[in-house]
């Protein structure tokens, strides 16, 4: 009989029964997964990014498979913040922590979506999607310019009393600089990384694989990039981090915890298996048992240094 393992943790003051959330854009509004899993067993979900008005996406092809990953250009199709509050939230189990993801094309509109979500009891935290790499209307990503990112975090910080996470774009030169900008403007935490900008070509048709051209690369292919960025961000800021990028197993998740993430989000792997998030949780538990770790949160930032060469 092995000793019990405590998987519970905390992210920006929100208590989580385990460190595994589902990433925005990969779990719908939660209820889509109810036929397959008990949502309340998860650490939480980050619902699909919300805009002020309902929003339709791109015409197919919107997704394409890549080596150990996939490229998407859905373009943030969503039901809009009001329908989310009215129709989607009530369908979720009371015990499930729900993080709302916010996306818009202008600062004022971002802040307005935050404001609408501020008084909603079921929403435990907000996550600003500052990084969607394939929306033409926004021009460059909000998360690619330190000054634009600062203005965004400032505006949304004023608009909400809820814990505020900023989901960073990986398509930047210095992730540490972007992390410091968020911390400086009062963000409570940082989620990283969003999809990596990419392109695929169908050589037989001499066209880009996606109708939109550029897309966001996700899945196991981006795991080392994400780990590197969590590692760098954890050395740059003191606010908690939520690690995202190609997590497919408990061991992948533990790698993020060791690099300094307080929690993780499982994303693209949910497409391949609606139970992926719970399998990752089970994998963290197995790792803790194997290594005699009593509390999963003790793994956070516990990467050990190599001896000098």
């Amino acid at each position, binding site marked *: 009989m092995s000793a019990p393992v405590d998987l519970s943790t905390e992210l920006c003051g929100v208590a989580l029964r385990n460190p595994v959330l589902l990433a925005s854009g*990969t*779990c*719908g509004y939660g209820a*889509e*997964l109810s*036929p*397959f899993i008990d949502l309340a067993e998860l650490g939480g979900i980050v619902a699909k990014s919300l805009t002020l008005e309902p929003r*339709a*996406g791109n*015409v*197919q*092809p*919107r*997704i*394409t*498979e890549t*080596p*150990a*990953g*996939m490229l*998407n250009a*859905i373009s943030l*199709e969503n039901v809009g913040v009001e329908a989310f509050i009215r129709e989607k939230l009530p369908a979720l189990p009371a015990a499930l922590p729900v993080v709302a993801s916010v996306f818009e094309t202008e600062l004022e509109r971002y802040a307005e979506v935050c404001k609408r979500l501020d008084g909603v009891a079921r929403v435990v935290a907000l996550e600003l999607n500052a990084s969607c790499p394939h929306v033409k209307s926004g021009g460059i990503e909000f998360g690619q310019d330190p000054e634009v990112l600062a203005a965004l975090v400032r505006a949304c910080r004023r608009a909400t009393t809820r814990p505020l996470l900023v989901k960073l774009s990986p398509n930047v030169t210095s992730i540490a600089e972007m992390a410091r900008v968020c911390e400086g403007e009062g963000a409570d935490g940082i989620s990283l990384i969003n999809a990596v900008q990419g392109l695929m070509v169908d050589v037989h048709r001499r066209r880009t694989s996606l109708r939109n051209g550029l897309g966001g690369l996700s*899945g*196991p292919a981006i795991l080392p990039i994400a780990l590197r960025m969590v590692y760098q961000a954890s050395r740059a800021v003191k606010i908690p981090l939520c690690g995202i990028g190609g997590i*497919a*197993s408990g061991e992948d998740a533990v790698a993020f915890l060791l690099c300094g993430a307080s929690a993780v989000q499982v994303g*693209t792997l*949910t*497409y*391949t*298996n*609606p*139970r992926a998030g719970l399998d990752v949780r089970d994998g963290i538990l197995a790792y803790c048992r194997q290594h005699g770790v009593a509390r999963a949160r003790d793994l956070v930032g516990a990467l050990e240094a190599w001896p000098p060469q």
Partner: protein
Amino acid sequence: MIRALARVREASATRLVLEVPGWPGHRPGQFAMLTLDPERSHRDPLLPRPMAVYRGDARALEFRFKIVGRGTRIMAALPVGASVAVLGPLGNGFAPPEGPATLVGGGSGIASLFELARDARERPRVLLGGRTRAEILGLEDFEALGVELGIATDDGSLGHRGLVTDLLAPRAGETIYACGPDGMMQRAHAIARAAGARCLVSLESNMACGFGVCLGCAVKTPAGFRYVCTHGPVFDSATLGWEARP
């Protein structure tokens, strides 16, 4: 809906038979997502493949396909006993015909129609098309049903030389069920409309999940985007805005 670890009983260039423990049954025209590397030892190819159930029962599911890319190439070469994760049954499937019906299948789209033809109360007329005789999937099975069968091939190697929709002549009050390439389904739709017949089509789409979260399979219709996985794959062709196309 279940997700189960299945075992390969048989695999070839056109056929995959899986023993699926606990399969809850399905309706004609429903599909499953097949994950070819369920232990994630390679994580590549990453995504499961949507496959129409050709026929099945509580013990085994049979899929018919044509090798078109990486996934189907791997599928065709799976050794007996290999594991495949099966998620399903997914999608709406076909509502069984209540009166006379003609089924029109093209290429691998034929796979969606076999159980519909087999289970219909009134024997339907079945029209099957492909580039060559070898592409008419499940020909012997359809013949064994004793239905009125029409065949068309591009090269004339079997039946009518030309399009399968050349054989389509809807009767009054009939329902047309079509699954195949978009061009074939749009012609079936146009012929059905002209004859005042209802036409149900089963759309094929690239998709990552099969249960409504990746949104990769969105189809633009006059009423907005519809998802092939959860709203379909079967749609009334009158809802798809095909009239507007040249």
